[in-house]
Structure formats: C-alpha cells, structure tokens
C-alpha cells in the first residue's frame, strides 16, 4: 500500500477571492467576505449576511472560459474554477498517462437552478431549451461537468455528508491512492448558495443576523457562504520530481450518533474522528501547531467542538482559529476550502485570525487567535469538519520534508 499522500496543487474560490493569491491577501489583511447578498435573489436579501462569491453567473462563465450563452449550475462553475486552478498548479494533464480521478462533494447539487424552474418543469404547457437543466439537479452533475471540462475521467464520484462532505472527499481520494487504484486525484467540494439552503437554515434558527463570532460567549449562529476548494493529491511515485506543497498525513471519520442536526454536548463524534486522524498520521496532539476549527459560530457546535478539543489536547491547545467569519460556512465546500487554508498555513508559516471574537466562553479554557500570527513554524495543521446527521471528520496536514 502507498503510504504518503502528496499535495501538489491548490484551487479556491470563495467570498474572499477567486483564486489562491486573492485568498491569501484577504486572509493576511483580515478582509472578511461576509456581507449583503448581491447575486442571489431572495426575500431575505437584506436580513441575512452571507459569504457570497462576488461574481455573477455570467462572470463565472467568463472566468471558466466558456461561451457567453452557456449555462449550468453555479455549483458546477465554482467547482470548475477551483479544480482548474489546482490542476494548473500541479501541472497535471489527462494526456500524461497517469490514472486521475475527481472526487467532489456538494450538499444540494443543482438546487440553484431547480428552485427557479421547478414549477415550469412540472407545467406541461411550458416548454423550451431550459428543460435540459433538469439533469443538472443531481449532485453528481457538477462533478461530471468538471470531469468533462478537464478531461480527467479515470474515476469520478461525489460525496454528500452535509458540512463534512469535502473533508470526506479528501479522505476517500487519499485512500484510493493508498490502495493503488489511482495515481492522483482532484479532491474537494463545491456548493453555491440557494434559497433552499438559506431558508432551511433560517427555519433552524441558527443564522446570526450579524457577522458570526465563533467561540465567543455571545455567539448567535453561523453565516452561510458559498465557494469551492480543491487539492490535487498524488502518490509518492506520481509526484516524483514535483514541488510538493504539503502532505495529507491523517484522516478520521466517525458519527456522533446523537441527533439529526445537533452535535452531542461532549463532542463524542468529533473526538473519535480526531483520534482516528492521529492514529493514521502517527502524530500526537502535541505535534499540532495550528487547529483550523469547524467553528461555525452556533451555540451548539462551538461548545461541542471546544469540549472535544480540550479533551483531545488535554487542555493544552496550540493556536486555534475558525476562518468561517471570512468565508461564511460554505457547507459541503468548507472542508476543501479549509484544507487549502491549512496548506497555505504550512507553506507560509501562518496562523489565520479568528475574526469578530470578543468574549471568552466560560465553558472553555481556550480562546481563538484573533491576529495573524507569523512568528512560529507551522508543521502540522488539524482541520475539523462536522455535519448534520452526526457526520464528523478530521484531517491532518503536514510539512513535506
């Protein structure tokens, strides 16, 4: 079995930038992307702050290099932009003879189009070219679009485990390489905002009407976001003579099995996922230099995750932050987006700040880092992603020596 998983390419688009360079600039200058909705039309336009990608569908199509009259889901377009960037940095091509897969993740797939056309789809008196968008509804559609555009077709799949989806796609891709089933995989996730998602989270009453404040005693909930984050991961052999950005050293998956939407107070599933990730990596909690927390800003998540982290790290936590105040909670894409952040943290020896934090949580002994830290070597980063349905995942990224 192959043992090492090398990361050779990064691609990202979110509310704080359309590529890695813009993203780095925003992270270093504490420039959050959460604000008023501009592109998605909803009744809640003015009441719900979100991390929306600052481009219209037409601009995304242009950025993809597709014809102006082309149309597909925003989920697919965001995914293609990030995958293209990652593939370009890794210098991979479908023609170089290596077996390459694409594993993506999404929560609601093509709902962005379906919610606008559903009644027309059902109305036999209405007809038109737009009927072809019916097929964009399925979660796998965006993955197939990306595979067709990039030409990587040796193995494709799509994962949906709510907000842990893309952490799981990274894990699955890594295991496909370890078993020798593929030489390299583009792994990550993509999700666009939709009225379905915004209204769904509104009914759950876990949206903060202000910018979110992860790990703050007065936190009120999360801000939704959209985007895509992908990595190119390769086997040792495939990455030979290439610039390796970092390694994926550990991964763990578990289920909290506590409640359909709420995590257990003690974060039992989160603890198990982290424990498994440490076991795979052979590292100890004391080896971690930075924790990029799931840290959504909801009352329940931050307490549950914080409690699990204190137990895992025996209350001696390294620097920790949640980058959700920058991007919003990008749901199925957040594991991929935050994996890109983790690799950037290692490459540049940075701890990204947790924005909007003011008041210590009385239940926890630690507080998140609020300023950009660049005074310490970052060799190992722990990245957590937890979702509805109790799906909990943890990834560990490490410096490549």
């Amino acid at each position, binding site marked *: 079995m192959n043992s090492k998983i090398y990361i050779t390419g990064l691609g990202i688009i979110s509310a704080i930038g359309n590529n890695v360079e813009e993203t780095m600039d925003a992270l270093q200058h504490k420039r959050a992307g959460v604000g008023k909705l501009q592109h998605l039309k909803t009744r809640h336009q003015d009441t719900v702050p979100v991390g929306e990608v600052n481009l219209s569908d037409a601009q995304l199509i242009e950025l993809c290099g597709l014809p102006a009259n082309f149309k597909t889901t925003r989920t697919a377009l965001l995914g293609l932009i990030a995958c293209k960037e990652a593939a370009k940095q890794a210098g991979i091509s479908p023609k170089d003879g290596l077996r390459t897969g694409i594993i993506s993740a999404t929560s609601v797939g093509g709902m962005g189009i379906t919610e606008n056309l559903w009644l027309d789809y059902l109305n036999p008196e209405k007809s038109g070219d737009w009927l072809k968008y019916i097929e964009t509804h399925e979660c796998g559609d965006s993955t197939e679009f990306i595979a067709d555009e990039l030409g990587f077709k040796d193995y494709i799949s799509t994962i949906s485990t709510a907000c842990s989806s893309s952490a*799981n796609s990274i894990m*699955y891709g890594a295991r496909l390489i370890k078993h020798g089933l593929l030489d390299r995989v583009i792994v990550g996730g993509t999700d666009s905002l939709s009225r379905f998602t915004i209204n769904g989270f509104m009914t759950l009453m876990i949206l903060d009407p202000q910018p979110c404040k992860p790990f703050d005693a007065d936190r009120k909930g999360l801000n939704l976001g959209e985007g895509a984050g992908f990595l190119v991961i390769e086997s040792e052999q495939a990455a030979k003579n290439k610039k390796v950005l970092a390694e994926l050293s550990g991964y763990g998956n*578990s289920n*909290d099995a506590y409640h359909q939407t709420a995590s257990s107070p003690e974060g039992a599933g989160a603890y198990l996922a982290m424990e498994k990730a440490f076991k795979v990596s052979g590292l100890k909690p004391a080896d971690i230099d930075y924790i990029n927390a799931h840290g959504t800003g909801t009352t329940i998540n931050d307490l549950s995750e914080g409690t699990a982290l204190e137990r895992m790290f025996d209350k001696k936590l390294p620097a920790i932050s949640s980058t959700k105040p920058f991007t919003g909670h990008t749901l199925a894409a957040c594991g991929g987006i935050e994996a890109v952040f983790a690799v950037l943290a290692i490459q540049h020896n940075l701890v990204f700040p947790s924005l909007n934090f003011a008041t210590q949580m009385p239940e926890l002994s630690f507080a998140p880092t609020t300023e950009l830290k660049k005074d310490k070597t970052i060799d190992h980063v722990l990245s957590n992603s937890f979702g509805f349905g109790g799906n909990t995942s943890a990834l560990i990224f490490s410096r490549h020596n």
Partner: protein
Amino acid sequence: MEMEAYISGTSVISAQPTFNSTGFLDDIIETDANYLNCIEPSYKEFLNPTMARRMARIIKMSIAASTTCMREAGIEQPDAIITGTALGCLEDTEKFLLAIIENDEQFLTPTSFIQSTHNTVGAQIALQLKCMNYNFTYVHKGFSFESTLIDALMLIAEGEAKNILVGAHDEMRDKYYRVCARIGYWKKEPVTTMQLINSNSSGSIAGEGASFFVLSAKKGTNDYAKLRGVKTFYKPENEADIEKKLTAFLAEKKLTPQDIDVVLYGINGDIRFDPIYHNLKNKLFKNSTSTYFKHLCGEYQTASGFGMWAAANILKTQTVPAAIQVEAPKHKAIKNVLIYNTFLGTDHSAFLLSAC
C-alpha cells in the same frame, strides 16, 4: 492487496416480493404501470409508531431493510455504515422546495429541510443503532452504490472493519417522474414487465428501492457469495472500449470472459442503451448465461443494488429464475457472476461475484 468481501446478509425492498421472502423471484409481479413502486412492509417491528409517522417513506424502507440484513448476518453493530443514493430524500426535498415557492419564503418549518439532506438515511441508521463508526454517503448518479462498495472493500482490506453495512436507496415520486418524463427518461406507451426487453422504443420504466447488505471480512457459514470487485467506467468511448475495460477488469482477478458463468445485464428496454448489453452478450460473453433485472425493479440510479441482490442469490441458490433469463441458460455450475449496468449510457459499472 486482495480487495474482496463476503456477502453475509441481504435485504431488499423493491417492486417485487423480495423482502422477507423465502423464494427467489419465483413469483414475480407483472404490471404495465409506468413506474414501479416498492411493496412496503409493516414497520411495526422496526420502528415505534411515533417515529414511523414522522419519518419519510425512503427512510423507513431503508431502516427495515438494513435491520433485516444485519439480523440475517447475525450482527448488531456494523463497523461502518456506507450508503449510496442519487436523489437522497426526494419526498422531503420536494416538500421543502414547494413550501418555499408557494409561501414566498415565509412560514416554513424545519422538519422537511432536516430530512432532506442526502445523508439522512445513513445518519438515521447510525442514530437508531447508536453507531459511532465510519459513516459515508455517496451521491453520484449511477456510481452512488458502486462507490459505497469500493469504499467498503478498501475498509476491509485496511483491516478497519470486519462487518460493513452498505446500502443503495432511491425513491421515485410522482412529480419527479413527470419532470424526468419531459427529457425522455421513460416510455410513453405502457409496457408489461416481461415485454420490456422487446419493447423496441426509447425510454424505460421508472423504479425505486432500498437494497442493503452486510459485507464481511471473514467467511461465514451462511454467506451468499464473495464480492470480488467493482469497477466504474465513466463515458467509455465505444463498445470496443467497454470490452477492453471489462477484459482488463477480469484479468486483474485472473479470469477471462469464458470463466463467467452468468452475466446479469442492466437491460432496461431503452433502445438507446440496450445495444451496449446485446453487444457484450453476443461477443465477449457469448458462452455465458444471459440474465437481466431492471424490468423487475424499474430503472433508477441505484438499481444496481437490486442487481447485486439478484447476483448474490443466483450464486447462493445456484439457480437462475425464469423471470430473469434473456435466453435459455448455458451454464453448468455457477461459479462466477458478472453484473454489467449503465445508467443513461454515461455511468457504467461492473461487479464480479463468485461462489464462496
């Protein structure tokens, strides 16, 4: 590293009397309905009435099927729960979507949103069992169930799991049926179950199902079959490419097409895609017994779950029921069964099962 597993439990809720049935497709239901609905069991022994009332139909069917196959395999806690579904929980997705549209994004309640996520079934099974182990949901069209099996085979090879619950579930709903009818998924004319293969027109018959299995690392005393491999082919170039890929897949297992005793095809009566199967039947597998299954469960993205149940039963019972025969059987004993399936000609997959 050898990647294989024993199928130690199966349970399928489908349009046929497959659930808790002692026979094997010996008493099929024939219909000319435009889509095939599952025969639902009583949920009394699986869920308390309050829970059953609250849960969507696809969740209930999946809980009944998963509970039953674990009982058969004699396990109480699986080491992993892996589900595959293309459409997730369609009923609640439709409900919440319609509520948003009709009420102009006001006066909404969370229940259907909560149950709409694709991982709801896998999550609910974990919740019922209080199972904190590995939990994954794959949602890739015609590769949804195939991905669960590839994942499960890797977990077993890694030594991470001894018994894994895997499942395929998708439901068909009246509205979604009508929507897909508009892009030519289904037949326009009524066709009876056993005539589907000769229907000679475009489109298929819609279906649904919940198919669950226990895959085990160790050989048991009452296993159905050994699952020896699953391969997916995305948009193969042509028939020659499919033949090449299938031959290579068999070669990995040190087999040739001549070693395959029975092939179970995803023939669905759609003249656009059935030639793919007929080509294999007449060339690569001309010496094998040809069988098919989608006329019994209907066409849907995770219908291959029904196919795997049928293949496992062919091996266990060493019989090929008349209802699935394309032509007179050619085999003697049944050692190797290959499933070849495609959903809409883009997602192709092959499963290899062998006698224990």
